[in-house]
Each structure stands twice: as structure tokens, then as C-alpha cells.
């Protein structure tokens, strides 16, 4: 599933059938090359971050959250990853030799596990497994 098609989707709680927010962004951990949380907008104010473990399903029309799931503010290991400067779409891409590979245009991820499958850049597609680092300046891909 693509970041671009998931963004803007309604996030609905399974128990109360109530909308808790709209998908606004993705928190990615470069160490595991996977999505570890969703950033939401239009929440009730209790927080804007939904960790992956609290997601029941990412479906074609809505994201369903588990019963008892709560939104929070990024804390612990998640805090530095949730920094807006680490958002993938539009991010500059470099390989580990210092050659530019364009910017991130979209990301294909596994809706079941959160694993990044394909990084789509303005110059071509790269397997998610190549992700080496993600910082304020660039996404770094390892040599194939």
C-alpha cells in the first residue's frame, strides 16, 4: 500500500465506531526499515501519534484501531523518529557513496507488518531493504 493512498484516510476505533483522526504522516524506523507509527490530524487533542501495535487493520477505506488503543505523544525511542524533519515524502535521497538519487516521491509498504517494500524516488525505485539511515538532511540507501 502506498503512503500517498493511506494519507488522508479516516482512522476509526473498532469498539466505539468513532473517528479518532485522519492519517497525516508516517513515522519510519530506519533500523528496521518499517513504519512504526502513524501521525494523525484532526484528533480530539489527546495526542497525534498512533503506534503500530495499536493498529488493527489498514484497509482500503479506513484504518481500524484496536479496542483500548490510545493516541499519544511520541516518547522514548519514538520521539526522535517522529520528528517532522524525518518525514519521507519529498526527502532527499543519497546512496552511501555520496551520489544523489533524487527525492522520495512515494513509499510502498506492507499494510500487515509495516515493512517498507519500495522507496519510489524521482529517479527510480529502490527496495525498502536498502534503507540505511534517515535523518534531517537525507534518506541514505546502502549499495545494492
Amino acid at each position: 500500500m502506498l503512503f500517498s493512498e493511506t494519507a488522508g484516510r479516516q482512522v476509526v476505533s473498532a469498539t466505539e465506531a468513532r473517528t479518532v483522526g485522519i492519517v497525516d504522516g508516517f513515522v519510519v524506523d530506519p533500523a528496521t526499515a518499517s513504519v512504526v507509527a502513524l501521525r494523525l490530524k484532526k484528533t480530539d487533542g489527546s495526542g497525534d501519534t498512533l503506534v503500530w501495535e495499536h493498529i488493527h487493520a489498514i484497509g482500503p477505506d479506513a484504518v481500524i484501531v484496536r479496542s483500548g488503543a490510545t493516541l499519544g505523544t511520541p516518547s522514548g525511542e519514538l520521539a526522535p523518529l517522529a520528528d517532522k524533519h524525518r518525514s519521507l515524502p519529498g526527502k532527499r535521497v543519497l546512496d552511501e557513496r555520496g551520489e544523489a538519487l533524487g527525492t522520495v516521491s512515494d513509499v510502498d509498504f506492507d499494510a500487515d507488518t509495516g515493512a517498507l517494500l519500495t522507496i519510489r524516488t524521482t529517479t527510480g525505485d529502490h527496495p525498502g531493504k536498502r534503507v540505511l539511515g534517515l535523518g534531517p538532511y537525507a534518506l541514505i540507501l546502502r549499495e545494492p
Partner: protein
Amino acid sequence: MTAPTHEPGPASSSAMMLASEITKRPVVTLAGAAVAQVKDLVFDGTAGRIAGFTLSGRGLLSGPLRHSLPWSGVHGLGHDAVMIKDESVFESRADVLERGSAGRGDVLGSRVLTDGGTDLGRISDVVVEVVEGTTAHVVGYEIASSDALDRQGRKVFIPLSETTAVSGEALVIPAAAAEFVADDLPGFAAAVQAYRARRRTEV
């Protein structure tokens, strides 16, 4: 934004870069943070290798940094960034400078003479060959050509050889090197190959 694509080359991929293009390049960690930019190259004078880089901070108002990047800390030297593992590879500026001579000031502007006594022009830049993005050495000079080369004063590239004698004032090259002048960097890569092949047969 469009960026040039650099196809992953064959096993022995090498790239020619001008020293002036390497300065200002960002120094980026494998974690994706830009932590400095290259201020100047430090050359190991005798061997013509890059010994390291002095650094400045990123941004208009930032000045030179107290730490520098030794070549051993370079993970990759590419067209768009100098990659390092993390900031632990930095060393004090004094330690890096000790390994060579900073800058290109010592050769820039020097006159290039053949051993036959012809003035080919003045050095305007240093050409560095980067192999596999991990080793780099000086392979030649960009010169603003004199009338002797019949290039109407354009910038041309000449290969360097081990027998090159250099001082702050002039550089004397074998007359044969003048036959391997190239008009651009892609052409220069071929010229360097041809020049090396010629020198091997002479020895």
C-alpha cells in the same frame, strides 16, 4: 527537483572530480544528518593522495570548524556528498593538517612548463580521481591554456606523472604529457589511461 543519475558502475568504477567542486560539498552521516561542509582539501604532497578535509559549519554565518575529517574517516566521496559513518571519525584540525598541505594555494596559479621549455598555461584547478568512491588521488590539473596548446585560452586538462617536478612557482612535465591534453573531464579519464599505458611501455 531533478538530480543527475549516476548509474551504479562496473566493479572498477571511477570518477573524475575537480577539487573546487568538492569544496562546499556537505558532509553527511550514514544516519542522514548533514554535520559540516568541506572547506578545503588536504593533500599528502608527495603521493598526491587526499589526506583529508578541513571543514566549515553549514549555513551562511558559520565559520571554520575546529575538527577536520581525515581520509580514513571517509565512507564515500560522491558527486553530491562526502559520506561518513558518524561524527566520531572527526579529528582535530592540527592532526589532519599534519598529514599534508592544506588547500590548493600552493599549485593554483603556477605556470606549467614542458621539459622542452614550452609554457602550456597556468593551473586553475586540481583533478582528483575517485575510485569506488573510497580512494582518491590527484591525477592531473586543469590549466588555463596558453597559445602553445592552440586551444584559444580555454580550460584544458593535463595528466600528472610521478616525474612531475613542482614548486610554488612552476610545474615541469614531460613534453609527452602535453600530447594527452583533454578538453573535458570525461575525455580526461581516457587521456589519463592512455598516458599511463604509454608510460608503462616506456619504462
